[in-house]
C-alpha cells in the first residue's frame, strides 16, 4: 500500500466512524453510509477501477473523473446550504419583527 492510500483510508474510516456514532441508527442511513465508505475504500485500494469507468465516459483518467464529479457535488452542496441560510434568515427575521411589533403594541396600550 502506498502512503497516499494509507492517508486516504484513515480519513475515510474516521469520517465513517464519526457518522456512525452521530447517526440516529436509522437503517437506511447506515446502509447509505456503508455503501459510500465501501465505494471510497474500493476506489482507494484499486484506483485503476476509476480509470475503467472514466474511459467508458470518455474521460482520460480516473482522477479527472473524480475531480469533475466533486465539482458537481460541491456546487449542489453550496446551493443547498445557501437555501438553508436564507430559510434561517427568514425565520430569524420573523422573530425579530414580531418582537418589534409586540413591543410597539405594548407601548401603544400603555399610552392609551
Amino acid at each position: 500500500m502506498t502512503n497516499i492510500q494509507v492517508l486516504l483510508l484513515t480519513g475515510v474510516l474516521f469520517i465513517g466512524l464519526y457518522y456512525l456514532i452521530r447517526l440516529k441508527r436509522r437503517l437506511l442511513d447506515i446502509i447509505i453510509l456503508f455503501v459510500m465508505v465501501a465505494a471510497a475504500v474500493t476506489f482507494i485500494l484499486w484506483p485503476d477501477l476509476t480509470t475503467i469507468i472514466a474511459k467508458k465516459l470518455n474521460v482520460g483518467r480516473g482522477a479527472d473523473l473524480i475531480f469533475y464529479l466533486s465539482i458537481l457535488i460541491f456546487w449542489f452542496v453550496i446551493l443547498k446550504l445557501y437555501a438553508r441560510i436564507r430559510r434561517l434568515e427568514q425565520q430569524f427575521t420573523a422573530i425579530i419583527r414580531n418582537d418589534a411589533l409586540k413591543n410597539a403594541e405594548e407601548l401603544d396600550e400603555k399610552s392609551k
Partner: protein
Amino acid sequence: MSHPQQIHNSDILVIVPVYNESSVMVQTLTQLAGAGYQVIVVDDGSDVLVKKTIGHLPVTILRHRVNLGQGAALQTAFNYAKKKNAQVVITFDADGQHQVSDIPALLAPILQQKADIVLGSRFLHEGSAPIGFSKKMVLQIARFVNFLLSGVLLSDAHNGLRALNRQALSKIELTENRMAHASEILFETKRHQLQYCEVPVHISYTEYSKQKGQSAWDSIKILFDLVLHKLFR
C-alpha cells in the same frame, strides 16, 4: 368616474427606516411630524438606541433588536401599518435626501385612484439631476436589470420615496432584508398586478447622504441577492 378621496395628513403613515443615523435624521423627522404626518420610525438595530435621540418627537418607534437591513425594516413597518388599518403609507429615507414637500405629489395618483403604488423618480424633471456620471451609469444599469427581472421599466432605480395604498400594502410582502427590496417591490407589483406610476421628486445630495448611500460595490451585492432571490423563490 370616481372622485378623489379626501385624506388628512394624520391618516398618512410615513415610514422612515433608520440605522446609525446622525442629526440629519432628527431634522427629517421633525419636518415630517411638523407637517402632521403619522411618523413610524424603524430603528433597525442601531448601536445607540434611536429612542434616546428622538424620544421627544411625536413619532412611533419600532425597534429591531439586531440589524436586519432596510428591506426588513420596511416590511416590519408595513405589518404595523396593516394592523393600524392605514390607508396610505409613504416610505421616506432618513438621510435628508428626500423633501417633505414632495409627499403631496406622491399621494395625488393614489387619491385619484389612478395607482396602487407611486414611485419617486429623480430623472423625470426638466433638465438633469445634479448627479455624478458614475452614479448615473450605475442607476441606468440598475433600471435595466430591474426591467429584465421584473418587466417594469422605470426612469429611476432604488429611489427610497414611494407611496403605497391599502391594496399595495396588503399584497406586497418583502423577503429581501437588505437593499434588494427595492427591486423586490417591483417584482411584487408585477406579480399582484398592482397599478403603478412614477412622479418626479427632488433629491438633495449632501455629503452625508452620499456617504450613507449606495456605492457601486453595493450594487454588485444587490445583484447577487437578486439572483439568489430568483433561484430560491
